[in-house]
């Protein structure tokens, strides 16, 4: 996804953090910490750090966003990450190649 947005201004991905706490108990705290970051740029940086296993610190605020995302994920039957919701409403799990991603996002 990073590669695709670097290549083209025509694509955007809205990331909703949905930690799977049964497998990753620490992810909940990380997700909340990132959700508290108001700057989108900084949030992206924190997310990169989280992926790399670096510490992103404690949540600096109270936020219901992560709980909301977890509840929404349950409602939409999303069990794996990353799960991409395509414009036509279909779901796909995993990280596709740039070409596959372009193809999927252009499907009707």
């Amino acid at each position, binding site marked *: *996804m990073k590669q695709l947005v670097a290549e083209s201004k025509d694509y955007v991905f809205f*990331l909703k953090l949905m930690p799977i706490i049964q497998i990753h108990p620490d992810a909940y705290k*990380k997700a909340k910490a990132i959700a508290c970051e108001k700057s989108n740029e900084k949030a992206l940086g924190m997310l990169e750090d989280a*992926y790399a296993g670096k510490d992103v610190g404690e949540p600096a605020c109270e936020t219901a966003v992560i709980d909301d*995302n977890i509840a929404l994920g349950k409602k939409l039957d999303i069990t794996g990450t990353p799960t991409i*919701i395509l414009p036509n409403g*279909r*779901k796909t799990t995993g990280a596709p190649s740039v070409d596959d991603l372009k193809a999927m996002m252009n499907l009707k």
Partner: protein
Amino acid sequence: MIRKILIALCAVAVILAASIAAQAEDTSSPSRQDVEKLLSILYPDVKVIAIAPAMVGGLKEVIIEVKGEKGIVYLDYARQKAIFGSLVDIRTRTNLTKRTLDSLATVDFASIPLADAIVLGNPTARNRAIVFDDPD
């Protein structure tokens, strides 16, 4: 005399074609109603959503819905046996059955709130997708 030979030849051709078809890809086109009737022996309330060639020769992939839940059953050419389970591509380790099922369940894109999402890319881009991700 010639007509008889022609008829016999035609018959042989049809039989050959049928047997070749049975071994290779099943190119028959069973109707949804026929398949629904057949599968209703197993599931009285079954609905057949789609029938397509399976990625394995000789089988049809039938997408069914029972009590609101979608599933896939593989049907043989003779319409006598059904296979329930996952078809897996060995080299790519892909569960083809699950992949097809996942792509069927659609979500209302517009109903997902994006205000709190982290934006990766140009926010006004016309090709948008939503990603549910775990930070770990």
